[in-house]
């Protein structure tokens, strides 16, 4: 008998060199994904390319769909029959998937997907960008719903978040996404899978999937509620679930926040670059720390507010004209000064650029001095791009 090929490919903890997009794809298969459908778009093409042979190896399904609209609806079908399914895209492709994501959120099916962000709006460009924060953290499609948003900042996290993603998606019956960007997707660095190969046959059975009604009542997956009272009840049910997720699933990383006068708030690639800036600033004696939200929804509001006890200045850095900064503003409740530095266009700021922004901020509050810093009339945020 021919020896069975080991389909697990990598050992847990084994050090490998791999592209971010490929780590994401392999991580998904390792976490039990057996269905992928998607439509090509740069900078995420390595995901479908990798899965086109890798899913074949493990007996899964890969489909290059005719459009993103179809791709997400194929996931709706696959998840409805209990398969761990995935799609990935970027920018405009994710916009097309929003209709389907809204249906899947209402039907409470678990799916996992990734947006490897590219420049926008419109066709934008194919460079790393963080302009899809609002779209991701506010549900993205029509109706009152949320999806869990995980923001990796390394190839290791790209590869390991699919495991967390499917776990959360199954636990809460909710779409869960990875919000990465072109840099994280394209770069290669050493990484390791920190979780064991998931045996899909050992996953707990689901009592809501469509498997044929043999020996049981028929099941219906539906998102239509013509009776307003029933839709109201359904929406409050979703609300309860979202409150529970906000209470239990917040994830973030802190670096040097214990003694920080200034805290940089950034996610993904911006957070990586910010670490370089922070190291440089610390060498000059400026006490700066990093707060990196890992779950963008649920957003770590509570922890940010706690940090105002020690730090009175927060610098939000995003590769956009400012989106997450609004969540920071809401979280801090006016208890600290908020600065913002944005880099749109698909350009990754350098550590030095961010370091220069940090230098613009006076570590100790001096209200009489704030005249030199332009205050945005609507919000309390000081836009360092203007200074």
């Amino acid at each position: 008998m021919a020896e069975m090929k080991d389909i697990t490919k990598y050992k847990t903890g084994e050090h490998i060199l791999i592209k971010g997009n490929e780590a994401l794809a392999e991580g998904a298969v390792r976490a039990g994904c057996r269905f992928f459908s998607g439509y090509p778009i740069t900078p995420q093409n390595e995901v479908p390319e990798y899965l086109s042979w890798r899913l074949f190896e493990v007996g899964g399904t890969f489909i290059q769909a005719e459009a993103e609209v179809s791709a997400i609806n194929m996931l709706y079908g696959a998840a409805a029959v209990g398969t761990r399914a995935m799609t990935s895209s970027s920018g405009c492709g994710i916009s097309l998937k929003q209709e389907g994501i809204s249906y899947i959120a209402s039907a409470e099916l678990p799916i996992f997907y990734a947006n490897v962000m590219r420049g926008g709006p419109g066709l934008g460009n194919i460079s790393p960008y963080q302009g899809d924060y609002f779209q991701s953290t506010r549900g993205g499609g029509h109706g009152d719903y949320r999806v869990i948003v995980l923001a990796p900042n390394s190839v290791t996290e790209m590869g390991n978040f699919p495991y967390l993603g499917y776990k959360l998606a199954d636990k809460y019956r909710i779409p869960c996404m990875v919000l990465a960007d072109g840099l994280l997707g394209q770069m290669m660095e050493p990484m390791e899978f920190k979780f064991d190969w998931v045996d899909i046959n050992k996953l707990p059975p689901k009592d809501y999937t469509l498997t044929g009604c043999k020996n049981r009542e028929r099941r219906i997956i539906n998102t239509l509620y013509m009776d307003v009272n029933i839709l109201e009840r359904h929406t409050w049910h979703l609300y309860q679930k979202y409150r529970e997720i906000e209470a239990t699933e917040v994830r973030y990383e802190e670096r040097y926040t214990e003694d920080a006068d200034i805290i940089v708030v950034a996610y993904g690639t911006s957070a990586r670059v910010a670490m370089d800036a922070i190291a440089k600033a610390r060498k000059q004696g400026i006490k700066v720390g990093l707060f990196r939200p890992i779950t963008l929804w649920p957003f770590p509001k509570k922890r940010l507010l706690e940090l105002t006890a020690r730090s009175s200045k927060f610098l939000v850095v995003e590769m956009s004209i400012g989106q997450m900064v609004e969540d920071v503003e809401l979280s801090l409740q006016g208890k600290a000064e908020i600065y913002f530095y944005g880099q749109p266009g698909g350009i990754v700021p350098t550590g030095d650029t961010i370091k220069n922004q940090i230098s613009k901020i006076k570590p100790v509050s001096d209200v009489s001095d704030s005249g030199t810093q332009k205050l945005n009339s609507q919000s309390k945020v000081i836009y360092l791009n203007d200074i």
Partner: protein
Amino acid sequence: MIFKRPEGLTNTPWRYCPGCGHGIVHRLIGEVIDELGIREKTIGIAPVGCSVFMYEYFNCDMIQTAHGRAPAVATGIKRSHPDLICFSYQGDGDLAAIGTAETVHSAARGENFTIIFINNTIYGMTGGQQAPTTMPGQKTTTNPYGRDTRIHGFPIRVCEMLATLDGPVYLERVAVNKPVNVIRAKRAISKAIKLQVDNKGFSLVEILSPCPTGWGLSPKSACEYMDKVMLPYYPLGVFKDLIK
């Protein structure tokens, strides 16, 4: 008892207008489900349109989908569980306007599921607007002067269009406006689903179906109108049958 409700249908009374074709076709599908003994492994897919509530009417596992996306959902279902039997049920707006891409590409891929396509030349649910199948000259709520092909373009003949593809194994157009046609319609539905059970590939049955409300006709004259006006434009028959 010689006439009873098929087990494939629930007892929920359906909410269709008098003389509507949807109820007739539902019954035919229910009978076929019974005759093929597939109720316990069938997944039905409801579209967006007057038949959206069919998830209440079929006594098998059901999923309701976004407008036009049923073939994509069916693809996801069948590719991950090929042993399930899956049919989508779609109107002309759903299938031949907003869902054209899903229809054409699932047919081209030769997905092994069955589409029951209801062609009533109108958007029933939203109040009788123009469909991609609306007849030249036909009045609708968005063609108050009748469909002028110079302005509104021409209707789509779905079976003929899909017959140009290599993917489908079986395409037939039938009608439910009189008993002899209803018998033929059932035969076509049965054949299409049987082909799926035998893993033969993509099958679609287009069913010309009366919408008295949308057409502003009585149920009886709607059926006569079909014979006179619709059938000459949409000829009945088999457009593809690779497995004779």
